């Protein structure tokens, strides 16, 4: 009995220590970080604007001016529009004009404004097995790649880049299928890396290309076709559909992005001396 009560005593001490341990674990939970200050605007956008570093370069100025904190969720255009439709974000910044038009027509978004454009380039291995280097006609380049059966990587994720790629295949009158045509189902950066490893062709926006080309064994082979232009628009989620979206915050962001200051900051963003995005909302001074 004596030995047992000693055990019990020890166990009680241990229980106290266990409680102390629990309290120590709970303490940080109680004082844990609330979201940093300021009202939040939630922006769904494409990986191209986030991964190229553009938003990180320009958004602090907007936050400083208005006090709004912008939470950026970077996904493909398809998913960004879906998030807007579901009211999970307040505003979207995307690059797929036909899908954007449908989005607005269906009443999911309002106040669509053109913000900027960049362009797509077709990149591939230096040895260029399909002989497309220097072509000005992107559709012709795709026809040659298909005819040569040279490996081509598609994002396959319903992103703006993927939508543009499918439009180009339609323009080339080629149904891309076969062992040479592979869908990665991943973002632009990872698809570029895979293309580099596999010696494959792929379509990429210039922003992502410039920010990552140093790590890639790929070259720009086709550029300059008017069909490769890549316009970005910003759209507020319809406040009539989701009453508690931050409509004022969304409109403040849209106003700032399309203001002379926002436009100047977009035009001033460069990587290695090259302009990534060309502002279009405010016509330049004559």
């Amino acid at each position: 009995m004596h030995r047992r009560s000693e055990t019990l005593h020890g166990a009680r001490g241990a229980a106290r220590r266990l409680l102390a341990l629990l309290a120590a674990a709970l303490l940080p939970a109680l004082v844990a970080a609330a979201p940093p200050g300021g009202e939040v605007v939630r922006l769904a956008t494409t990986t191209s604007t986030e991964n190229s570093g553009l938003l990180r370069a320009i958004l602090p100025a907007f936050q400083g001016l208005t006090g709004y904190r912008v939470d950026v969720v970077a996904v493909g255009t398809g998913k960004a529009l879906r998030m807007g439709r579901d009211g999970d974000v307040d505003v979207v910044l995307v690059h797929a004009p036909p899908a954007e038009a449908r989005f607005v027509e269906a009443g999911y978004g309002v106040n669509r404004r053109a913000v900027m454009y960049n362009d797509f380039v077709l990149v591939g291995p230096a040895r260029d097995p399909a002989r497309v280097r220097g072509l000005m006609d992107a559709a012709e380049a795709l026809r040659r790649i298909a005819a040569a059966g040279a490996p081509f990587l598609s994002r396959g994720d319903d992103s703006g880049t993927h939508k543009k790629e499918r439009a180009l295949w339609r323009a080339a009158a080629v149904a891309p299928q076969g062992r040479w045509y592979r869908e990665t189902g991943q973002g632009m950066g990872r698809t570029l890396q895979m293309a580099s490893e596999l010696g494959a062709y792929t379509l990429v926006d210039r922003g992502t290309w410039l920010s990552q080309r140093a790590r890639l064994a790929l070259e720009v082979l086709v550029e300059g076709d008017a069909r490769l232009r890549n316009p970005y628009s910003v759209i507020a989620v319809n406040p009539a559909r989701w009453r508690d979206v931050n409509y004022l915050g969304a409109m403040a962001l849209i106003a700032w992005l399309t203001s002379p200051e926002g436009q100047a900051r977009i035009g001033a963003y460069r990587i290695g001396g090259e302009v990534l995005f060309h502002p279009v909302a405010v016509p330049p001074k004559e």
Partner: protein
Amino acid sequence: MEETSLAQASLEALRMLVTGDPGLWEIIGVSFSVSLRAIAVAAPPAVLLAFLLAYARFPGRRLLITLFNTMLALPAVVVGLTLYLLLSRAGPLGEWRLLFTQTAMVIGQVVLAFPIVVAMGHAAIQAADRRAWETALTLGAPPWRAMLTVLGEVRFALVAAVVAAFGRIIAEVGSSIMVGGNILHYTRNIPTAIALETSKGAFAEGIALGLVLMVLALSLNLAVTRLQGHGELGA
């Protein structure tokens, strides 16, 4: 083309850690804040449930045990997807406006941690000497005191269960990236940052963050070992 050999990327990673890159440490902070909150929310009720499963007799008990053992294998992406559909404004809990917040990440990690603590805790409590429970009751302790006595008997196994659960949730990416959205300065934690950096081909940053996770795992295990050693000496 830049060389991205493993050795070079690792060296660069070490340099970033040692020079105290503020962005890196902010991400580490988010990871700890979210996972500590999740474990603090999950562990107490999980331990209580583990105790009830071991000491109480009620219908459906065996089924519950099987259920929690099965939930050990729950993939984080499935938790993330389910939670996303629940928390989306278009979903049933959309009114709560929790999607893309740290709170949503905490909820996902609670779901992942809970069954680990229950299953491991239950195994430990069941293996404990039943006489501690009986003795405590005999000495006139109310049931909750007797329960604390039993839990005290198996404290090291319980701590191990909590540490295992913590190790799992601080390293999971599937749920965090889906319901957190990987938002810079807010919901970007170590695993989602590794996913992002890798997608950009920035392997050094990915490795630096991976090193943090591994150092963390090592420190946790050292701490547990030390705690256990201390307990044996004091008994």
